[in-house]
């Protein structure tokens, strides 16, 4: 299955007369439960059947008896859940019947294999977006709007201060910065989340500027992306390089947790940058203490969230992790039926700010923790 497969949105199902049936998805201690289909979407405690939107670790947790995800997500999922996990795949746009409902997966544009879950029950359609973005990304299928009655949306960047510039502008900025550093013979280090962000950067930059070095935690995922058919430029591990390698023209992509670790020492005097949507705010950039902040996110910005909601045609919106109260209030003011849907996809219950401002979701925080151990392994190995 090609990562760039374009899927036509499914035509909306006309609403049928109903006398307030039970909601298709309900918050339970185990996760979002679909009683009519007897499965969970991205459950946070072990269940029998889990439909997974994407492989970030707070959405795809270990311990479920059976998983359903897209074929593109399979590689990363296997790497994270172990070879023994039972994972069924469902291609974008194909349907499967589960209990009384029909389930299909549609591109969410977040990371490789990320999906929106469409659930149809007796003419009523719900879509769970998982995490998504509308901006083009060469490493995954583009977000496809899916018409529905109820749209479950994330709200990580649900404030009007978050508005992304076009990827061309942002990656152009990285290229210029890298080229300037290369001209001055100093390595360029970009801190980015190992799964998704790192590969998007790799696939978007001008690889002709210099050699690209990836941290071990990033390289593992590069392999999964290449295996899934996503073209990425050549990358090396530091262990592959000769001892006296000159990093002067190199671009180094490392997870945020590598900052300040012994692994970094080999690059000597270098320029550093952090790639994250949070970098839109100067304070967050300053706090990170890096030279540059590149505003690149795999989540939708404020206009993106509003566009996705509008294009879903939903009359009812349930808001999860991020700026929940803001989104709910704003959507209600525009005349939509909107409510908060409690999930465990983010660490901050209040949704008004984050203790760890630089981690875009709890998923990434966790993957950062995973990476920490990888980083150690690698630094001792080399």
């Amino acid at each position, binding site marked *: 299955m090609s990562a760039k497969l374009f899927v036509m949105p499914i035509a909306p199902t006309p609403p049928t007369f109903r006398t307030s049936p039970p909601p298709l998805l309900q918050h339970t201690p185990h996760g979002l439960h679909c009683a009519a289909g007897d499965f969970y979407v991205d459950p946070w405690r072990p269940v029998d059947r889990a439909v997974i939107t994407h492989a970030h670790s707070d959405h795809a947790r270990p311990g479920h008896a059976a998983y359903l995800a897209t074929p593109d997500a399979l590689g990363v999922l296997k790497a994270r859940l172990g070879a023994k996990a039972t994972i069924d795949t469902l291609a974008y746009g194909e349907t499967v019947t589960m209990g009384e409902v029909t389930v299909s997966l549609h591109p969410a544009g977040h990371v490789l294999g990320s999906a929106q879950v469409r659930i149809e029950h007796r003419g009523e359609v719900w879509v769970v977006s998982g995490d998504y973005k509308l901006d083009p990304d060469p490493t995954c299928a583009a977000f496809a709007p899916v018409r529905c009655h109820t749209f479950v949306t994330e709200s990580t960047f649900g*404030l*009007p*201060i*978050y*508005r992304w510039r076009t990827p061309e502008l942002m990656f152009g900025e990285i290229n210029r910065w890298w080229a300037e550093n290369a001209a001055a013979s100093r390595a360029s280090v970009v801190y980015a989340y190992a799964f998704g962000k790192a590969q998007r950067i790799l696939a978007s930059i001008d690889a002709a500027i210099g050699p690209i070095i990836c941290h071990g935690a990033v390289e593992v995922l590069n392999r999964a992306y290449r295996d899934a058919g996503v073209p990425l430029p050549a990358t090396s591990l530091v262990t592959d390089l000769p001892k006296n390698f000159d990093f002067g023209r190199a671009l180094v992509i490392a997870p945020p947790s590598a900052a300040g670790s012994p692994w970094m020492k080999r690059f000597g005097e270098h320029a550093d940058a952090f790639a994250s949507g949070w970098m*839109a*705010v*100067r*304070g*967050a950039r*300053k*706090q990170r*203490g890096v*030279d*540059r902040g590149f505003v690149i996110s795999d989540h939708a910005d404020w206009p993106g969230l509003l566009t996705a909601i509008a294009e879903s045609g939903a009359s009812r919106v349930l808001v999860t992790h991020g*700026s929940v109260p*803001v989104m709910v*209030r*704003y959507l209600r*003011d525009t005349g939509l039926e909107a409510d908060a849907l409690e999930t465990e996809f983010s660490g*901050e219950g*209040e949704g*008004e*700010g*984050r*203790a*760890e*401002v630089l981690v875009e979701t709890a998923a990434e925080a966790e993957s950062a923790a995973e990476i920490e151990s990888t980083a150690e392994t690698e630094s001792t190995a080399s």
Partner: protein
Amino acid sequence: MKDFAALFDALDQSTATGDKVAALTAYFREADPADAAWAVYFLTGNRPKQAVPSKRLHQIAAEVAGLPDWLFADCYDQVGDLAETIALILPPAKSRASISLSVWVTERLLPLRQLDEAAQRAALTAYWSELAGTERFLFNKLITGGFRVGVSTLLVVRALANVSGVDAKVISHRLAGDWQPTAQNFSALVGEASSTFDVSQPYPFFLAHALSDAPYTLGNVHDWQAEWKWDGIRGQLIKRQEQLFLWSRGEELVSAQFPEIIAAAARLPDGVLDGEILAMREGSVMPFTALQKRLGRKNPGKKIQADTPVAFVAYDLLEVAGEDWRQRPLHERRTKLHEVVYSIVLGADERHVIQLSDIVRAPSWATLALARDQSRKNGTEGLMLKRRDSAYGVGRTATGKGLGNDWWKWKVDPFTIDCVLMYAQRGHGKRANLYTDYTFGIWKSNKDGQFGSEMPENARQLVTFAKAYSGLTDEEIREVDVFIRKNTLEKFGPVRTVKAGMVFELAFEGIQRSNRHKSGFAVRFPRITRIRYDKKIEDADSVELIAAMMVP
């Protein structure tokens, strides 16, 4: 404006002094003198007055962006800076104006203040539609009067020196005083250096190292001259060819701020003195905050001069009648300094204005340590130890033939106290979305029934004692932030009342009685030294302990 915005980005994105100077140099090399003049003006810390009141600015911006007020407020809360919030929420620029910085300032920004509300609204809407990114942010910063950038006057001066070939100290002198940002003034600023010796020119200050080892490691106590370490502003007082100049350590001319020192110095023979500017009343040093007030006021009036008298306490002599004395040994310079200071007869009003810094004499290091323990009583920070045969070096580099460093500062240890986190407020700028500003409390007992008769006499209550927002690592700040969010009892605007549960050790320098905090004390330079995970809130210190610490 575009070039100035690019310069701002370069300065903002780099922490390396070399890069900053290079960016400034590149900018001044290309800039039109009219623009360069404004750039110098803003970069050296001058700001235009707020052109539009914050509340109105907030309303107009929300309107232009099509956002309800509550949503604008939420955005502001996340960003922590009004100018930046506005820059982020406004719709993308329609067209990009290529208007120069000086035109933006003189034809747009400055007239804005004179306009009525409707005209301001129309003007802002039009201006915003022509600006994007950093330019929009800077324009807003200038409107709110909050423009700041991480660059010192010294670096700006250095860049101007690079561009013009004029000596940095000459530029610094030319820039001193009430410099107005015009093209002519800029050209004069970087114009040909006059060939005659610049009589205002100070010497680079010789700086001390902090003493961390025991003092006896310095050898024989008799080889060292000890003086009090004053908590004022280091200054160089210059008299050459009947002209007087007082420079601060930041190489800023501060003559206008301290006219009484200049007046008293008129009687000195030609020469250069190194010393400390202090606020001093009847022989005792006033708190540093008093001196700060004087530093901010050029040409201070009679009242402020009477309320906060200042003195120049001299401790070294660098030049006598045109001759450079810096390579002579300290004891020789000191003898001459003594002679110079006592050669002048001052009037009754000026008697204390120019003084000699006392030498603290002690037969042994142990006795000297006892003297040092008295530092707080004198309003000093400890002792200075200077090798008696040392030359006057440059910066932190000794130029004598001594074995190691020649000047040491031997500070007294700070006071420390354990206190409890009570309130928290979000930081600004870099830490705008974290709770970083804390108010701490200490225990006060209900001795006099001051908490009400319903509480028993032995009951204790936490009362506010000090605010501090520095001393923690970023990681610790995040930890405390999590604690605050989980333990909020109440919110008042930006302030959260936090459930007592975390104990911190605070260090501070001086204690004064004050009504600022409920405890009845105010401390100088409080900072967090560590989080006391090992202590329960009951173990925090009390008002009684502070009272005991206070020097009567």
